[in-house]
């Protein structure tokens, strides 16, 4: 009996590994190995053409890759642009989904229409949205100049001027991403116990008070997480600046990911690109760390 059970467990364990095998193999080849390899390759000089040859080992060059990219003026430009993009996206885009979700959640009839309508841009493939907005931003025939003209503003050059290109990308980014974030807030709002509102109402709390003392504190947790995720996401922005402006005009939308792409695939400096990838990772980890630390401290202070 006992032996049977051990045997059954052994058999289950063996099949357990068999079922894990495909995942372990593919994670190993295309995630775990590359992640570790990224650390090592940033200290090596890599020749992409020779890379396919068996037995080729990239040469160890120490910190050379890092020294070279730090000497590159474009790296500074790219970080400044990336931080600008992330900052503007927070400024313009962070509260939009919160407000939309709270408003849509109040709607009694036609709620599913609003949810669908605000979610539409998320359904569109990003490439399509970008190409569409390229037409909208056309200074001559685009709808955006018609729209701002309606409010009495002078026509702008949008993505064709270094002054407004980044702002144009942020507007596009907010348009494409607000819908999915709104859904998450809607779900969080649905999770607020009705009794909280009811008792507050009986106690005589105004709508404003309920909003600021029940609704917002209840979704604060989600808001904090989505803040981090938004910053992490915007630092890695690539397709929008790459397709819409190709980093221009005059490098005004050159983000770190576009620079990484250029290093690797336009200049063939794979080592530089790997080093930059590592740098991006370190910055993001540092950001998350500082953020976690601050919010802990902050919350501790409140209590």
């Amino acid at each position, binding site marked *: 009996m006992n032996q049977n059970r051990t045997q059954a467990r052994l058999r289950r364990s063996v*099949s*357990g590994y068999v079922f894990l095998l495909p995942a372990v193999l593919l994670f190993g080849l295309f995630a775990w*190995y590359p992640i570790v390899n990224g650390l090592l390759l940033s200290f090596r000089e890599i020749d992409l053409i020779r890379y396919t040859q068996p037995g080729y080992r990239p040469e160890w060059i120490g910190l050379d890759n890092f020294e070279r990219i730090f000497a590159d003026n474009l790296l500074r430009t790219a970080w400044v642009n990336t931080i600008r993009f992330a900052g503007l996206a927070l400024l313009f885009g962070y509260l939009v989904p919160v407000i939309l979700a709270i408003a849509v959640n109040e709607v009694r009839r036609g709620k599913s229409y609003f949810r669908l309508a605000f979610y539409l841009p998320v359904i569109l*493939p990003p490439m399509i949205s970008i190409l569409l907005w390229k037409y909208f931003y056309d200074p001559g025939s685009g709808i955006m100049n018609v729209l701002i003209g309606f409010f009495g503003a002078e026509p702008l050059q949008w993505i064709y001027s270094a002054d407004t290109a980044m702002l144009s990308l942020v507007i596009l980014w907010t348009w494409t991403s607000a819908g999915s974030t709104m859904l998450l807030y809607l779900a969080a709002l*649905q*999770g607020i116990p*009705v009794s909280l509102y009811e008792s507050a109402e009986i106690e005589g709390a105004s709508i404003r008070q309920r909003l600021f003392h029940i609704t917002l504190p209840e979704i604060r947790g*989600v808001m904090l997480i989505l803040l981090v995720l938004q910053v992490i996401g915007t630092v890695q922005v690539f*397709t929008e600046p790459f397709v819409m402006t190709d980093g221009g005009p005059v490098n005004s939308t050159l983000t770190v990911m576009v620079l990484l792409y250029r290093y690797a695939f336009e200049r063939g400096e794979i080592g530089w690109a790997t080093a930059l990838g590592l740098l991006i990772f370190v910055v993001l980890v540092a950001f998350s760390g500082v953020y976690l630390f601050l919010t802990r401290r902050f*919350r501790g202070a409140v209590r």
Partner: protein
Amino acid sequence: MSSSNVSSAQPAAPHGRRSLSSFDRGVISNMELRRPGIRAGYLLLVIVLAVLTITTVYPLYWMYTGGLKDSRELIQTPPTFVPRSVSVENYPEAWSNLNYSRYFTNTLILAAGALVFQFLVSATAAYSLSKLKPLGSSIFLFLFLSTLMVPPEAYLIPQYLAVVRVPIFGIRLIDTWWAVWLPRAINAFHIFILKSFFDEVPQDLMDAAQIDGARPSQVFLRILVPLSTAVLAVVAIFTVIAQWKDFFWPFLVLKSTHLQPIMVALYRLTNQSNPEPMNIIVAGLAIASTPMIVLFLIFQRQILQGITLTGLKG
């Protein structure tokens, strides 16, 4: 509480969760809505929201009707709301001029492959981690999930190199479907969702089958998979959508134009020196968006549920 508001809605979700469309009350109660002042404010809110939806609905309207207009009308400002020149033939013309048969087929091949590999990898792993639990399975779970902590862009280049020359095997996958299928098959998120769902399936069912002599593979295929069609469907839909939208990775690894999926092809077609006329391109954009819109409308419920279930995917 902060770490889990998003995630706490997750695994046990099947029971007792309010659906997105059910409505008890919001900040404003139904009683209050009868008061004229609040009523007026509420109506104003609805009107503002309705006006705001123009910003998301109009671009799509512009795209579909723009595909019908002639080039002159398309660039006219302000744009015509109802097309004056209706040339329905723009759409078939876009299909053939942009060589869409080829690119649609390619996209479908990539999506179908992604689907197959996704199941081969995620469902099996989730089964093992949830039910078979071999020695050290928690370490593997940790290793899978840890890949979510590393932003994919940070290891983009090493991953690209792993496709240029696959470690151990030494094969070159560039310009083959495998270059997309294999790296895109790994998704720790999906393993996690499936595992949480499998965890809810009572162990008794498995044990009973095992006593009857069923092998683990039979338990998996005959019991677990049929019981999990709902969550498997969610994973399948997300996989297909992600594959349809994907641009950067296929753009990097599929350099031959005859292999490229639609999004990569669109990038190339709009960037070449002598592009097609704008109305043909716009019709092409409309065609390329349609499968996603149709898919969403059909599976709206699953997709919306999936998003709230998984927290952060879209």
